[in-house]
């Protein structure tokens, strides 16, 4: 019973006689016990003793299921599903998707039972070539169902920890309150002059009132609030990870829109002639005209000329006032002080 009837087909060891025996399977789906594997595949590769198909030692895995055929099938399935991972979103109708699923199932079936393997392999190769990019994309993408499950699990976990905390707290609180009430009663009985009976009666009332309140409070709390991850319409709040392979677009800050206003220069001197009129005023007569290469780059002689004029005139009226002024003011104050004194 219960797994004790497992037998190694090679050395006939049973799980019953050797509880430490571990059965291994390889790609062909035939089981061998661990020691047989070591013995037969000492060189690293060899043939399966049952079906004579060439196997590598590294590919031996521990048999998970009671039926080694299932192990084999799951193995193949995993391999195939890595490639054939189209989702329902990739198809326009459900019917097409179902047809696709059936085809995948057929392929797996053929591989497991070695039916028509050359054709099947050809088909797989074709598919691989044709759908390379979809496959790659889907590999990084979880299906809708998986996401749902994941979310459920996460919510469950969060809920559990939160609830455990809140209940422990509530219980502690309750204990504390009881303890307090009791102490208060004893204190009152010790020190108060009132009738002991009335004190006890009032205490009973108080505790009853408290007991009434508590369930209400618990009901109000209504269990810890679970952080909702969806709007009421079912749309996710916030960005979900793993849904797209793109980098998230950095968020831009909202600033007031830009308005252009021409800069006003304070030349602190006589205003130089504007750049447009330099030609008319014959300023260019004395400077080198821009050659063809310079003009191709957007340079004109007006630019440098304008710049030179601005530099020449800027700051002509400048008087270093501030420093001077304060000195004068200070001396004036001094004199004032002296007068008053």
């Amino acid at each position: 019973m219960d797994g004790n009837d497992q037998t190694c087909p090679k050395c006939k060891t049973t799980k019953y006689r050797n509880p430490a025996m571990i059965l291994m399977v390889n790609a062909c789906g035939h089981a061998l016990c661990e020691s047989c594997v070591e013995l037969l595949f000492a060189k690293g590769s060899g043939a399966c003793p049952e079906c004579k198909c060439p196997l590598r030692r590294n590919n031996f895995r521990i048999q998970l299921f009671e039926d080694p055929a299932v192990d084999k099938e799951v193995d193949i399935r995993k391999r195939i599903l890595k490639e054939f991972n189209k989702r329902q979103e990739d198809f326009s109708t459900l019917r097409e998707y179902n047809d696709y699923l059936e085809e995948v199932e057929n392929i797996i079936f053929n591989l497991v039972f070695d039916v028509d393997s050359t054709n099947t392999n050809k088909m797989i190769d074709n598919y691989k070539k044709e759908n390379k990019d979809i496959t790659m994309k889907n590999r990084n993408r979880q299906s809708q169902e998986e996401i749902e499950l994941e979310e459920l699990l996460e919510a469950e976990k969060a809920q559990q920890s939160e609830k455990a905390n809140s209940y422990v707290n509530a219980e502690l609180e309750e204990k504390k309150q009881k303890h307090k009430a009791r102490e208060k009663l004893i204190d009152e009985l010790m020190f108060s002059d009132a009738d002991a009976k009335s004190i006890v009666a009032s205490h009973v009332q108080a505790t009853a009132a408290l007991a009434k309140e508590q369930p209400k409070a618990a009901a109000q709390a209504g269990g810890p609030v679970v952080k909702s991850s969806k709007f009421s319409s079912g749309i996710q709040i916030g960005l979900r990870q793993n849904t797209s392979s793109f980098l998230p677009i950095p968020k831009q800050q909202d600033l007031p829109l830009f308005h252009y206003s021409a800069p006003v220069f304070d030349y602190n001197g006589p205003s130089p002639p504007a750049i447009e009129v330099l030609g008319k005023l014959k300023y260019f007569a004395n400077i080198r005209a821009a050659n063809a290469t310079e003009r191709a780059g957007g340079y004109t002689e007006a630019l440098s000329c304008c710049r030179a004029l601005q530099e020449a005139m800027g700051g002509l009226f400048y008087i270093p006032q501030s420093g001077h002024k304060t000195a004068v003011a200070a001396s004036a104050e001094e004199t004032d002080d002296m007068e008053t004194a």
Partner: protein
Amino acid sequence: MLELKHALDAKGHCLLEMPSGTGKTTTLLSLIVAYMKAHPLDLTKLVYCSRTVPEIEKVMEEFRKLMNYYEKEMGMEQNILGLALSSRKNLCIHPSVSKEREGKVVDGRCYGLTASFVRARHAGDDAVPVCNFYEGFDAHGKEFPLPPGVYNLDDLKEYGQAKGWCPYFLARYTITHANIVVYSYHYLLDPKIAEVVSKEISKTSVVVFDEAHNIDNVCIDSMSVKITKRLMDKCSNSIQILETTISNMKENDNRRLEKEYQRLVEGLRDANIARETDMALVNPVLPSEILEEAVPGTIRTAEHFVAFLKRVVEYIKTRLRVQHVVQESPAGFLRDIHIKVCIDRKPLRFTAERFSSLIRTLEISDLTDFSPLVTVSHFATLVSTYTKGFTIIIEPFEDRAPTVSNPILYFSCLDSSIAIKPVFNRFQTVVITSGTLSPLDMYPKILDFHPVIMTSFTMTLARPCILPMIVSKGNDQVAMSSRYETREDTAVIRNYGNLLVEVAAAVPDGIVCFFTSYLYLETIVSSWYDQGIIDQLQRHKLLFIETQDAAETSLALINYIKACDNGRGAVLLSVARGKVSEGIDFDHHLGRAVLMFGIPYVYTQSRILRARLEYLRDQFQIRENDFLTFDAMRHAAQCLGRCMRGKTDYGIMILADKRFSRADKRSKLPKWIQEHLKDTNCNLSTEECVQISKRWLRQMAQPFSREDQLGISLLTLEQLQSEEMQKKIHQRAQAA
């Protein structure tokens, strides 16, 4: 009646606690029938759900009486059709099939004779046997509806014999137009059956759940699945059978498989429209959108589906190979099954549907072999459909025998409201009633509905015919309690024994004792042997014990009844929550006293219970302790109620545990018991208890005739119409 009428007027649900034996059934039936007559458009049908076949028969008898009365008073035939429905086992009249003892076998054989493909084969080849009764019904039965009247199970059989029609299918067919249908809870609550039987019951019906104190457990059981190692091994075998059948069929007759395949491509809806007899395998509730979708491509062809089943089975087997207890949510299970064997959620959801379709296609007529696979397919569908309110617990061994490996996977429903929700949503009025529903406020919480009326009624009695007492200590003043700490205490056990012996000496005829569990019963009885209490007891009365074996128990019961009948007197030791406590009445001399030894708490270490308590706390804000006490007290009340089956009956109720006298326990007893439980009777010792019972018994033993009751608990027509009474009634109506 007043409250019931209010509920009917408001088209809402109600919760009524009425003491047993006070005419609960008659009241319900007569008012609802009268209401149906007065408002034929608002109320078309009464669905009366009870628990067992004898109870169903009882209801039918009441109904027959009511109809006779109507006929006598109105002087004409009434145009009302009422019938009882039960399983094939109870209704079959086929000469050989009806001889079978087990319900499942009868169902299987019936299916083998009436399935559409069998009949199709019969049309071509006369050697294929079919059921003549079904053929008769199919040919003529549908055109001639059952004439109005009252039909219990035997009447149906007789009618079927006379006409040559199958009574089971006749009853099933008649449900749609009968005015009153009486059947078991399961036909309505169990989604697997309800889908088939109760689908066409109209919205304007009243549903009555009688004896509904355990309704939450029924709901939970109907949605839970238990998978053992043996079941899985059987599954592997049946998968092999399936494989060979499919390959045979492929070689010989590929047409049928092709046809099925085509149908599945189109969608399940069509697959679902099948002949009524083909509904032997039914599916757990599926959201209707799934039914309209097509079967996923992964399980469309028969071979693929069988391979898929194989993977599911192998996966569950690996899960059963655990060394320690595992508890996980359905979501966790789904993720794991996806990782381990690449099974998505969607095809899992379709498993049950697809499996029944396959069985139909393969024309397998003997279904009994495949019941393990049916269980697994239901499990697969349920686990992928519901992610909330369920939990999966895998236990490698039983708690009591940790060395014996016996892995079990429990897929346990935690939320009793899931199964009953469709019932509340669909029908305009649902009446939940029982003799013991206290505390009433718990039921709306755990079943998640809003009753318009919620009342507990008491009895008007001409004499104090029940004597509830709480015995808290023995003659030696040692407190009596079944608390875990004092369980093994010899003083407590001896005191319990002395109490029983003294009560047995004082009380005539039958005494029923209830213990908290089989284990407790056994330990106590064994130490009573050592202490010589059994010998003392047998000087007064014969002793019978309930065991876990149903056959043994019924034998003990028969002899107990015999001993009570011939005046020898007997004591029956039984267990709360056992078979005796649920549905066997000890009226009159069969139960003059009921003793409740200890408070019948459930086994709190059970993981399923723990999970459920947690769920109740999280979802409905019901504290663990509150629920446990509620559950214990309703079972205690149920046990106590066994001895009172009517107004002329009388009985002593002894609650032998110190803890019963606490306010939180006492207040949870039904109102009709509380009313008689005086404060002076709440903290008695054994001898005080015996004193009181002796005095009371002497009083009760006086002749008690119908005339004594008149004017108090029984009214003649004149009294009812007297001015004073009319005023009283008027006042009550005003107040309410």
